[in-house]
């Protein structure tokens, strides 16, 4: 491998596709997805994080991606189809540092058999190597070889060669082992990249993750899913969002009935890895991303018929599943496959927990988190008593969002459940 003399000082880099290919069949969504996967190929080997910037954001990203032709205001004019395909600028303080340009006169393809067009993912991985500070390599299996070597396989399965990993780690060190337990199962693979569709229809308005008030939150194989309406975000164990833009619920969860408009609770069942999504008085069981069987009644897990649930979580400490509704909760014994007797109980037994939580989940480190609005309550591993400094704003910790503004009009954290015992509170109408 060869290293340029420059490297990024920061470890989180922003990127945005500023212009898209005009003469290729790839949709904007596919191009963005391929860029995400190409950057991720470098990120997972180095701990570098990459965040896509909204197209409306006025800020300049570190890596600005353009499809251009012929002379395009830099010292590397393109030469039409064939010949030079793309280039990128090494890290640095200059505004063009890191920027990556693809020749728009190439026929950019994804998933085509070799010989048809030029595989955009393969070239993007190469160019982002430059954008991170790598020069060309003569190693036979390196992605940094100067000549195009054809497609490199499916973006979600691609792994850098040893030569490229070593070069990258010279610059940025090895990826830190996440402090979390290694999830027992691989994270769910993202849905297959959409087939080459006509240029994207204007994308539907999506909710802002920084508004909080999620419908459901679940730790699914080490990743935290935040559900809101027909959308969801994914947070990787490293703490990095897969994308600031939400994914579509029904495109990912294959078989989820179209009439299910909102997921009210979710959890991953430890004993068999199934994922359960709850809506209304029913739930659906998924094996990986595929629905397994028909809807099941919530009553099966011990709730009164017709009731819905606010939050569901599985507590590793005892293997029991807790189902929360309002100020009450039920407990279900997964091993015995039956509800535990003596429930529902009052939620105040989880000292400090908010009533009617948006959802509850257990992190990879075993701590229990109650979420409500834009706040979270943390219960240290094995404890049923919230940390004294709970609640805390969830934005900065979970979603790469600013803390809610401190202005008096911003919603105060909902009152935590009072400590058990006689309550002498005087409740006026406006409390």
């Amino acid at each position, binding site marked *: *491998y060869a290293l340029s003399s420059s490297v990024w000082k920061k470890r989180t880099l922003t990127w945005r596709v500023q212009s898209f290919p005009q003469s290729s069949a790839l949709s904007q969504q596919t191009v963005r997805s391929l860029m995400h996967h190409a950057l991720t190929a470098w990120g997972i080997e180095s701990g570098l994080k990459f965040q896509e910037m909204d197209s409306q954001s006025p800020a300049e990203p570190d890596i600005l991606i353009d499809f251009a032709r012929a002379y395009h205001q830099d010292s*590397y004019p393109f030469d039409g189809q064939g010949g030079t*395909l793309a280039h990128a600028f090494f890290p640095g303080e200059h505004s063009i540092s890191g920027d990556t340009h693809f020749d728009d006169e190439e026929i950019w393809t994804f998933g085509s058999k070799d010989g048809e067009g030029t595989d955009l993912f393969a070239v993007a991985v190469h*160019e982002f190597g430059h954008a991170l500070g790598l020069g060309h390599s003569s190693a036979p299996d390196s992605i940094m070889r100067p000549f195009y070597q054809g497609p490199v396989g499916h973006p979600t399965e691609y792994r850098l060669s040893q030569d490229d990993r070593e070069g990258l780690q010279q610059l940025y060190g090895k990826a830190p082992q996440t402090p979390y337990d290694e999830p027992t199962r691989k994270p769910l693979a993202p849905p297959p990249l959409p087939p080459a569709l006509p240029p994207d229809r204007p994308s539907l308005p999506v909710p802002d993750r920084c508004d909080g008030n999620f419908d459901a939150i679940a730790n699914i194989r080490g990743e935290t899913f935040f559900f809101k309406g027909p959308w969801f975000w994914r947070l990787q164990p490293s703490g990095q969002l897969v994308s600031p833009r939400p994914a579509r619920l029904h495109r990912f969860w294959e078989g989820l009935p179209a009439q299910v408009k909102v997921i009210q609770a979710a959890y991953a069942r430890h004993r068999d890895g199934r994922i359960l999504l709850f809506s209304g008085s029913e739930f659906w069981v998924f094996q990986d991303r595929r629905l397994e069987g028909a809807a099941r009644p919530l009553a099966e897990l011990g709730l009164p018929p017709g009731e819905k649930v606010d939050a569901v979580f599985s507590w590793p400490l005892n293997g029991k599943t807790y189902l929360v509704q309002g100020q009450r909760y039920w407990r279900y014994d997964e091993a015995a496959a039956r509800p535990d007797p003596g429930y529902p109980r009052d939620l105040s037994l989880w000292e400090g927990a908010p009533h009617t939580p948006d959802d509850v989940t257990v992190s990879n480190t075993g701590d229990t988190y109650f979420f409500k609005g834009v706040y979270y309550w943390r219960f240290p591993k094995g404890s049923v008593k919230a940390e004294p400094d709970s609640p805390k704003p969830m934005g900065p910790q979970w979603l790469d969002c600013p803390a809610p503004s401190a202005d008096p009009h911003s919603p105060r954290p909902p009152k935590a459940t009072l400590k058990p015992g006689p309550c002498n509170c005087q409740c006026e109408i406006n409390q």
Partner: protein
Amino acid sequence: AQQPAAQDVSLGVDWLTRYGYLPPPHPAQAQLQNPAKLRDAIKVMQRFAGLPETGILDPVTMATMHKPRCSLPDVLGVAGLVRRRR
């Protein structure tokens, strides 16, 4: 081996200069590209291209110079380059 045509040598030298294998020509010094330097430059290019390192601008090497590739130079100038030898 068959001697490359003058035009090929000229195109080859331009290509090798563009991608950093040869120093850009300096009109004032008009330093001669001595044949040994040219041969070494061709060998390094052949290594990057995965070709037999003959040091000669043979037809395969010339054809490779027309293949699709990245615009960036292969040799970044000694100052900025840290190359790891196996």
